[in-house]
Every structure is written in structure tokens, then in C-alpha cells.
């Protein structure tokens, strides 16, 4: 029984390791911070793998080696209550490795979260609702106009934009998140009703949208393309299909889009969407397809 169990533990360990090498992995990242997240993930998963494999091999070895059987039935087990030196060594070693990892993991976090968005960031307000995404662009004046929930009209004014506010007159409200490539993007995240979460796997980025809060986040997309935006916080009945679109455009295409009259915005976006295959990655000019992100 001991041998069988030892072998089973090893086989399950092997199966687990093989599965991690089977090709299923993150989609390619399209942000500046993405490779750093991926690197930190790799370092961590290597530490995890070493610890996991070592512990399971050790466990499998113990049950194989120290089984009671007919040959050793008259012998007794080793009589020991422990070893203080060993306790100290493994406590200190794991403490150094674990806390070291935690400290290392703060670097990307600090870059993204401890600082405000750089000057000149492209600003968009993301207003989530059950089960759709509204994107609020400041327009040529660069100012996001005032909103008021009492002005919300599900058909014509989904975010309650106050059209009397001067700053709101040129604002655009659409259903697609459009961002320029290689320029920091600042998102202001809000929710109309329940808590949602902004999740685009290729961005390596996720953030809750909490009613009553305006959460400012920033990152820099580095690849052009069209990507799916999902909700990652259970928000109600059709949470599973609260799907949105992120369109990362070359600078000139974005400038052209933003310069158009606002009633042409969504129709032009639909045209642009047709130019980029969902999930594919394009070069900075949006001319050459570099491959799929997954």
C-alpha cells in the first residue's frame, strides 16, 4: 500500500507539472506593466513549483520508504520528538523566501498604484451598470462634464450627463472603450448600481468599480487591437455576458476619431472595429497583424 500511495502521489505531482507546461497560459500582454507582472508570476510559480514538487516527492518517499511490512514488523519506529535546529532552519528559510516574494511583488503594484496618472494621460470615465459598460470621453475641451443620477435616461442618457454644464457639451458617451497606443491611459471607474470589475486579460489589469466611489487607475497599452472586456465581480443575473470592447488604436486613428463630430463617434468606432480582428495584436500603426493574443 505504501508503494502504491507513494507512486500515486508522484504521478499526481507529475500530472500537475505537465498540465502547467501544456501550453495553456496567459494571453499575450499588451501593456507596459504586463511583462513585469508576467515576470513576477514566473518567479513566483517557479518557487511554488519547487516547494510543491519537493514536498510531494518527500511525502511520496516517506510513505514508500517507511511502510510497515512483514520484514520490519519486529522493529520499532524511530523515537524522536523533533529537532530544534531543524525547526529554526526551516522557519527562517521559508520566512525569508515568502516575505522576499511579497516585497518583490510590490514593485509593479507601487508603479501602478502609488502614483497618479502621468500628465498628458488619455482620460476616460468608465461607468458600469447591470450589464453594460458606458464610456464617457471628455471631448475636445479635455474636461469630463458633470453627471447626476437623477438625469439618467436608459435610452438617451445612460450616465446622467448634465447637458446644461458647459464642460459636458462636447462630451461623448459610447459603449466602446477606445484608447491610444503607447500613451498612458487614465480610467476613472464608477458604477451606477452594484459593484462590477473591469477585466481585460491582455491588460493584466483588474479593478472593481464601486458605487459611490471614483477610482482612478492608469496603465499604458503598447499594442494595437480589439480585445474583449469582461466583468469580474458578480453583479447579477447576466453577469456572465456583461461584455464590452476595448479598442487600442494607433495615435493618428484615435486623433481622427476624437476630432469628428460626436454623433459620428459610435459609427466610426464600429468601422474601426471591423479593421481589427478580436483578440489579435497589431503593430503601432495598426497595419500589420503580429498574431493572436491567445
Amino acid at each position: 500500500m505504501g508503494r502504491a500511495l507513494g507512486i500515486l502521489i508522484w504521478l499526481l505531482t507529475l500530472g500537475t507539472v505537465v498540465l502547467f507546461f501544456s501550453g495553456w497560459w496567459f494571453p499575450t500582454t499588451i501593456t507596459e506593466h504586463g511583462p513585469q507582472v508576467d515576470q513576477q508570476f514566473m518567479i513566483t510559480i517557479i518557487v511554488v513549483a519547487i516547494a510543491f514538487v519537493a514536498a510531494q516527492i518527500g511525502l511520496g518517499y516517506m510513505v514508500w520508504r517507511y511502510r510497515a511490512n512483514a520484514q520490519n514488523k519486529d522493529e520499532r519506529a524511530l523515537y524522536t520528538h523533533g529537532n530544534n535546529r531543524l525547526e529554526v532552519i526551516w522557519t527562517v528559510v521559508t520566512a525569508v523566501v515568502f516575505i522576499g516574494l511579497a516585497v518583490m511583488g510590490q514593485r509593479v503594484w507601487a508603479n501602478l498604484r502609488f502614483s497618479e496618472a502621468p500628465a498628458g494621460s488619455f482620460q476616460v470615465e468608465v461607468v458600469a451598470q447591470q450589464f453594460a459598460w458606458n464610456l464617457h470621453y471628455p471631448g475636445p475641451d479635455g474636461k469630463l462634464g458633470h453627471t447626476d443620477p437623477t438625469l439618467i435616461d436608459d435610452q438617451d442618457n445612460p450616465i446622467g450627463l448634465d447637458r446644461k454644464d458647459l464642460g459636458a457639451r462636447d462630451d461623448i458617451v459610447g459603449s466602446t472603450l477606445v484608447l491610444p497606443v503607447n500613451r498612458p491611459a487614465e480610467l476613472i471607474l464608477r458604477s451606477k448600481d452594484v459593484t462590477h470589475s473591469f477585466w481585460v486579460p491582455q491588460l493584466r489589469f483588474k479593478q472593481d468599480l464601486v458605487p459611490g466611489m471614483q477610482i482612478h487607475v492608469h496603465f499604458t497599452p503598447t499594442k494595437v487591437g480589439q480585445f474583449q472586456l469582461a466583468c469580474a465581480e458578480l453583479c447579477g443575473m447576466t453577469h456572465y455576458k456583461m461584455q464590452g470592447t476595448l479598442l487600442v488604436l494607433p495615435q493618428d486613428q484615435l486623433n481622427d476619431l476624437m476630432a469628428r463630430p460626436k454623433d459620428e463617434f459610435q459609427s466610426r468606432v464600429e468601422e474601426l472595429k471591423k479593421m481589427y480582428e478580436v483578440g489579435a495584436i497589431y503593430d503601432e500603426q495598426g497595419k500589420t497583424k503580429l498574431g493572436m493574443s491567445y
Partner: protein
Amino acid sequence: MADANVLHEGQETVHRHEPPKSFIRKYIFSLDHKVIGIQYLTLALVAVFVGMTLSVLMRMNLTWPDVNWPLLGTIKPEVYLSLLTIHGTIMVFFVLTTAPQGGFGNYILPIQIGADDMAFPVLNMLSFWVTLVGFIVLIAAFFVQGGAPIGGWTAYPPLSAVPSAGPGQGTGMNLWIISIAIFCVGSLLGALNFITTLLNLRAKGMSLMRMPLTCWAWFTTAVLALLAFPVLLAAGVLLFLDRNAGTSFFLPAGLYFGRDVLKNAGGSPILWQHLFWFFGHPEVYIAILPGMGATSHILSTFARKPVFGYRAMVFAIFAIGLLGFFVWGHHMFISGMSPYSAMAFSILTLAIGVPSAVKTFNWLGTLWGAKIRFTTPMLFAIGFVSLFVAGGITGLVLGQTSLDLPMHDTYFVLGHFHLVMGVAAIFGMFAGIYFWFPKMFGKMMSEKLGRIHFWITFIGVYSIFIPMHIMGIVGMPRRYAQFSDKNGQIYGFLASLHPLVLFVTVAAIITFFTQFIFLFNLVWSLFKGKKAGDNPWEATTLEWATSSPPPHDNFAGHPPVVYRGAYEFSVPGAPNDFVMQTEPDAEESGSRAQQDSSGNGHDGHKH
């Protein structure tokens, strides 16, 4: 103690408590901790089969959405979400809290410390009946208008606070809160009882450091429950008031639902998350610590070796319990909480991995140089160690702020917590039931059926939960009712995962049916099992020093006296390879018990 009438100095006179005569007082409204323990275990057994059934229905819908099932019909998204909510709630509260602590702790702890019952038997009876009412109220949520709530076991507001936020968020959600509040009361009563019993009712000679590690685990769990459940209870009351009395604890101004702006103002949805996880993270340890205790106990027994590093094990349990109160924020890195506090929570979270690793090292140390007897409880205890490592180790990923950006709320999290607080804890309970069943019922369980149950379940749970990590890496969000609909795959980046989704579902269905072998074994052994002696496993602790099952007052009026630590196996020179805690040292014959015993779990055998 050859002559029961010869009393040791200071020992109480023989004073037997006879069991009550009436059926109702004996088996229904019983004050006997053993009966109450079995009542808790029965409740947990019913609950776990309900919870498992719900999870299989969920897997079916994820794999084959929009299918019109015989009897069930199509599983609609809101039905899926209610299955998800009730599955989580049942498993966390009515299985993982109820069985390890209320069930095993209630039955075994008083006997292991040599007490004749819990300190407050009436409170003990009440805590069970209160818990049962909580369970009935929860199940009732399925049958009210709108059905069961859809917001998950975490019940984040505003989804949980606004009845119009979705189906099931009306009466169903009210019932959910009431059920949880009732459960909190039951758990608090239980926790008080455990703490008092352990501190005050230990037998002569049972110093703290001579206690079995199970007792340390149940004690620490009770302390956690005492500090954590009141916070959940308070949060639940506030949520109930927000829903029914127009208050705004969790509701900010300007919420827009169904063409109306709500009148609430001033509340914070994140406040709920802080309160919930202040309870919720210690709850993880409430679920797993008793499993750790049982595993240590059973590994030592069947390794025929003392626990390696008993003192380190006790400190590790304490360290886990203490740190467990300072890491709740790792559930909230991306909630909108301050990024600076996220950093602090992250470092504390990885620090809690240290005592967990120390426990694993000591389990391996216990097996080193052992003479392992592969009984069914031992198989499950070894399985516990394997699963605890597999599930716990990925906490190193999820505990890091930056890695939470891609991993939060994905299937990676599901794989992680199901392995560590779900199936590892369940393996601890399986080990416990196979181990203590002979004591509880005087019958052995079938080893053959037990082994079949172990092999399939062990392979099954790995097959279910390891692939979920991969799904999470690819980006699959949790709590999605389905991943495709009539128009095909909804998210292109998840399309490649279909074979894995199917594999997990098949593994889940096989594992589910395997549990009926366990159920059959349980019932069959109750009637047809081989008769168990007082100490069938040749174990050392006090529960094996009395009859199987123990009499109403546990030790038939003769309180045991303890002479040594809990795990004296393979002592050189001893006649047997185990020395019971009640066995006096030959040369000192009993006098040790009166000395101060600040033992290291092994008085007189220091190295």
C-alpha cells in the same frame, strides 16, 4: 487502577452520571456532548450531500449550457447563481464549520481531556438546535418567491442590499441573512463552551502541553470563532437594516435601479467587505485547523511515532490563528481599498505561509523513520498533507498585490481555496470519521470500501481542482453561469479551455458518485461492522482508555489521570510500541501526575 474504590489523593469520589431514560432526552434534546456531536455530524453529512449535488448541477450547466435536462429543465442563469450562493453558504457554514468543530470537537474534545461532558451542556444542546434552524431557514430560501439569493456566499452589497438588484434578492436574501445570523449565535454558544471546557475541565495531569494536538486545534478554532462570528453577526444585522429599514450602512448616494434613484446616502459597499472578510478570513482557519489537528493526531498514531516538533506545532497553530486576523485585506486588493494597506496585507499574508509550512515540515518529520500502518484514516491523513500543500502553496501567488491583478476572481482562486479549505479540510474529516467511528459506535468501518473511497476521491479532487488553476491563468472569471450561449462562445480567450472544462466536470461527477461508497460504508458498518475493542488502533490518548462507545459520563465515574504527553509511540524499552497517557511510569507509579508538568508533550524523554 485495579480497584476502582481505591481513590488517589484529591480525586473525587466515584460519581456516575446515569444517562436519561426517555428517548427524547437521550437522542433528540440530549445534553450529552457525544450525542450532540453525532447530531452535528449528521447535519453536516446531510448538508455536504446537498452542497455537492448543487456543485454537480453547476458543473453540468457550465459544460452543457442551455440543455433541457430531464426533471430539471434548463438551468437559467439566475438559478445557476442561486445554486452557487447556496453551495458556498452550505459548504462554508454548515459543513466546514459544523463538522470539524461542532461534530468532532464536541464528541472528542471532552473525552480527550478527560472530562465527563462539556462545561455547559444546555448551551451545547442549544447551539446544535440553533444551527439546525439556521440550516432549515437557508434551504427555505429555495422555495420562496424569487428563489434563493444570487449574490454568492460573500453577499456583497449593493447587490445583496437592494431587493430589485436581481431575482432572489428579495425574500430569499432576507432568509439568507437570518440563516447566517442564527448560525453565528449557534457558533458563539459553541465557542464559549469549547474554551471553558478546555480551560477548566482537564483531567488531573493533563497539562496544556500534554494535550493532543486536536485539542489545541479545537481550542484555537473556538477562540477564532468567538472573535470572528460577532463581526459577521453585526454586519448581517446592518445589511438586514439596509434592506428592510431604509438605513444606509452599505449604500452610497445616487444608486440607480430600475429607473429610480434610491434615497439612500452615506454608506460604503467596501465597509461590508471589510466586516465580511474580517470574519471570512479567520473562517478559513476555522475550517482547516481542526483538520490539521486530526491529521497530526492520526499521522502520529499510524506512523507509530511521536509528533515531530510538538511544541513547534502548537506555536504554529497559534501563529496561524493570530495572523489569520490580520490578512483579511488580501481579499480586497482590487476593491478600491487604499493601495498602501494592500501592500501591508500582502506582506502579512505571505507571512502566514510560514507557520503553515512549519506544520508541513513537521508532518514530514513525523513520517520520517516511521513504521506506517496504512489504515483508511492514515490514507486520508496523508492525502490531507498532499492536498494542503497543493492548495496552500498557491497562496504565494494570490497573496501578492501585483499578481492579484490578473488572478483575482478567476478560476485560479477557485482551485486554490477549494483544495486548501475545501477538500483538504474534508480529507481531515474523512480521516477523522474513519478513525473515530469505532469509538463512536463500537464498530469498525470497512477498510476495503474505505480504500476504494480514498483512491478514487484522492485522484478525483486533484483532477477537479488542479485544472482550475490553468483556467484561471488563461483568464476564466469565476461565478459565470455559462461561457457560451446560443450564439457560441462568449469570450474568445476562453474558447481553448473547453476540453479542460469537460474533464473537470467528468471528474466531479465520478468523485460525487464515489461519495455514496462512503455513505454506504457508514450505514453498513453501523449495523454489520466488525466489533471494535476499546483501543482498536493501539493509540495513546484518553478516548481510547474508555469503552467504545464511551458510557454516558465517558469514564464510568472514574476520571482518568494523565501521566505523559499525547504521542508516546515506539518508546524504547516499553513493552508495547505505544504508551497510553493513563499509564503510570513504572518507577514513579502515579506521583508524576501531581508534579507541575510543563512538559514538551513528552515528559521525561527530552533529547
